[in-house]
């Protein structure tokens, strides 16, 4: 290939980038690099790993952005099927780590099929609703509910309540944007509230413990409560303006657990304070807003449902993670989107944003 050819390919690929979203994502990723570097105790290896993850995820973003929405829609059913098969496989042959069966050994590496479901389920549902766009009836919502319930229950019995709920939520968002009537939503809400005591009885001991610990972290200061106590101390001691980058004592002295991954928000808030936290939230809100804007202008039902769900899902993860780290939600293993160290979550998110960009740019192309 000669140089102009390369230029043409690059230009072609970049044509499907949503400029505003890209800038917001890059700013966020820059913040995450700073945060991971600090949280890792200024480890060069961690930094290199994080940068590699970002590079890979960005490449995937570009690739996905170049796939037209109608092709993406067609990926729904096969991905969903693969996801289900893998979940069943996990249930049968999965590795047990920390008391739950979540990982599927694949030779040298092992994967968590529930990660795949985070994308596959909304994709499947959006494709399903697109197919029945003109003739959408209540029974189609019933089918959709079954499509949600299958992965939900499989993940629930791993057991991984947090992920199951998040995947359930993503499915619910698709239904919500597809126009599920308020009556049913209200009905489901009431039914859910009523079934809470029953659900409590079905919870595993460790799950109940996590919820109880939330209300009284001091009841178990060296066990479950430790994470919450230490992360709230980190956040609270950060104050309005923070202790400064690389200067968070809670962080640098190894009090914050899982600090490069799930608890990176504690590190960030300690070092950058309320001011930094609000700026970060604004950044997240801007990304979500851009996503919703793309959803509003999306050309097809599939794109509308998918774009809105991705945006809402994105912020749900942020809420769950920050809520957990700041002690208002139970501890569930959810990383902070685009901040936490970790390749899988990063790739999953970038696939989502790739789809958003695909929907944003392919629509324009159609118009012109």
């Amino acid at each position, binding site marked *: 290939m000669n140089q102009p050819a390369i230029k043409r390919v690059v230009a072609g690929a970049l044509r499907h980038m949503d400029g505003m979203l890209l800038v917001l994502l890059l700013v966020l990723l820059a913040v995450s690099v700073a945060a991971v570097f600090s949280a890792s105790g200024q480890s060069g290896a961690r930094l290199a790993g994080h940068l590699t993850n970002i590079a890979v995820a960005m490449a995937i973003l570009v690739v996905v952005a170049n796939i037209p929405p109608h092709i993406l829609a067609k990926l729904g059913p096969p991905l969903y099927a693969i996801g289900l098969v893998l979940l069943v496989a996990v249930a049968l042959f999965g590795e047990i780590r920390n008391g739950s069966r979540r990982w599927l050994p694949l030779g040298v590496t092992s994967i968590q099929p529930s990660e795949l479901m985070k994308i596959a389920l909304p994709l499947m549902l959006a494709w399903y609703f697109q197919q029945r766009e003109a003739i959408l009836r209540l029974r189609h919502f019933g089918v959709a509910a079954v499509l949600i319930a299958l992965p939900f229950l499989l993940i629930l019995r791993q057991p991984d309540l947090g992920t199951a709920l998040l995947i359930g939520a993503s499915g619910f968002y698709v239904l919500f944007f597809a126009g599920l009537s308020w009556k049913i939503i209200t009905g489901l809400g009431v039914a859910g509230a009523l079934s809470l005591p029953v659900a409590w009885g079905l919870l595993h001991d460790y799950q109940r413990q996590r919820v109880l610990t939330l209300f009284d972290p001091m009841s178990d200061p060296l066990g479950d409560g430790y994470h919450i106590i230490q992360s709230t101390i980190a*956040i609270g001691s950060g*104050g309005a303006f923070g202790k400064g980058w690389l200067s968070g004592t809670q962080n640098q002295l190894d009090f914050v657990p899982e600090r490069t991954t799930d608890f990176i928000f504690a590190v960030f808030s300690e070092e950058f304070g309320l001011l930094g936290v609000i700026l970060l939230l604004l950044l997240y809100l801007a990304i979500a807003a851009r996503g919703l804007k793309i959803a509003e202008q999306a050309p097809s039902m599939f794109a509308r449902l998918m774009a809105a769900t991705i945006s809402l899902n994105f912020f749900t993860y942020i809420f769950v993670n920050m809520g957990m780290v700041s002690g208002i939600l139970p501890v569930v293993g959810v990383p902070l989107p685009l901040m936490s160290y970790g390749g899988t979550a990063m790739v999953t998110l970038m696939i989502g944003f790739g789809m958003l960009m695909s929907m944003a740019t392919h629509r324009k192309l159609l118009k012109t």
Partner: protein
Amino acid sequence: MQSRVLKNLELELAHYRNRLMVGAGFVLVLALILVTRLVYLQLVKHEHYQNLAENNRITLVPTVPNRGLIYDRNGSILAENFSGYTLEITVARAGDLDALLKQLGELIEITPKHLRQFKRLREESHEFETVPLKSKLSDEEVAVLAANRYRLPGVEVKARLFRNYPAGEGLSHVIGYIGRINDRDLKNLRESGKTPNYKGSTHIGKVGLEQYYEDILHGRTGFEQMETDSGGRAVRVLSQTPPSAGHDLILHLDVELQRVAEYAFGDYRGGLVAIDPNTGGVLAMVSKPGFDPNLFVDGIDSTTWKELNESIDTPMVNRPLRGIYPPGSTIKPFLALGALELGLRKPSDAIADPGYFSLPGSSHRYRDWKREGHGTVDLHRSIVQSCDTYYYRLAVDMGVERMHDFLARFGLGAKTGVDLHNESSGLLPSKEWKQRRWKQPWYMGETVIAGIGQGYHLTTPMQLAAATAMLANGGTFYRPRLVRAVRNAQTREERVIPPEVAWTDRFDPGHMAHVRQAMVDVLKPGGTAVLAGANAPYDIAGKTGTAQVVGIKQGAKYDASKLAERHRDHALFVAFAPAEAPRIALAVLVENGGSGSGTAAPVARAVFDYYLLGKKPEGVPVREGYESAGD
């Protein structure tokens, strides 16, 4: 149809936009919840969490001072520190303790004794404290444990200073020992407000000098303000207050003299206290048998403890300090002096001794130890030959009250105040005492036998030695002292503890000379201890005595065959030398030794020979472990 579809689409899109607005609202609500929470944490409660964070990372780590060492007068070390490694377990972090102990047992040798000791220490300590399992690990053991550390939760190998007593048994009752701080020690520390200085300390003086001089030996604990991570690992030192090591003790005691004395006892049990009559310094203090104090440092196991405690030889009893015995005839020189001082006798006053004494109007005969009697006995002869009849009569003339008051002037019947805890006071009887203790009047017969140091009168060897020292120096009661000087471990500066004169009494020098001469002649031909004084190039003033064995602990499971031997009289000897300018005064007690002249006096002679002439009896074992501190 077309327009209806379009209209439907329009409616649907409007509916969808509506839902998007709800979604955006939902996101805003979530964001608001987060902001509220963060404002609460970071603004409202900031100070609270700031404090928590500070406490989190800054910990005060105590730096335990090195314990002071103990030396004898010539610099031989009697209590030393050496560093070594212990295997310790934090039970709270260990998980399955039984499995862990089993695992450890596969890596290094863990004996049932270690396990018993561990179990006992565990009961005394809290879950989160480290409890030693095995101390003085070998290099190989340390290496094996370090290599397997990752799979041994709660197991730590700690570098520690250990206490060692090279003199072992011989000085067990003088030096005492340190042991792990227990609940009672903690309570004492709290009550005396010393707890802060013991942060990080694991051991404390339990008996002997280790206990008495605990404050001096322990030193001042230093502190390091450390920044730590959540695992408690030190990251860096913020500030530092170095510890100051405990002071060293330098004793009056001469460990070689001590060994000579011990050796002179042979197989006998007993006690000896030798005092410098010019300072009160304790030159030797023997309690036989002793025990190995090293057993106690890291907690003695129950089997050995039981053995020591139930032994018929009572090795745990500090005989010089707590053993109480009738003084027997060793009281005679004191009473003789009393007779002269009180004007009851003149040196020339003599009695005709028929071999017994009877009270007026009574046919009961108080017998002399010599059945046929000593013939004509004056004061000098009464001491030299230890004539009982002379003192029966003297006692009656003196009366119990005057006898009590005079003997009390020598510190008899009271604690000497030596620098060791738990001293016995013995007993100097009086009418008042008997009424109080027994609700009975004093009988004349009791006065009679008090004249030869029998009956209620009880003394400790320490008391007898201190009284003898007072007799030797002519009337000054020095408080007996084991420690001669305290040396600052850093500056090497020695602070000599000045002799403490408890009181001075004035006795007529002529009377003193009479008594002293009689005591010198005790070891000359015609005296009761002639054999012990044979060929001495210096004059010894001494007095023999025997004390009847009062009784043996009821219910104790003693071997019947040994009982006969244990009913023999205790042998006593008090002496000082050289008689004209005394440098050493002592009291010897040989349990079941029979007669003072036969077993007790030779011990005294061996001690004098070594102390005054440097002459060591043949066969004194050269013991490993004493090394002169070459500094």
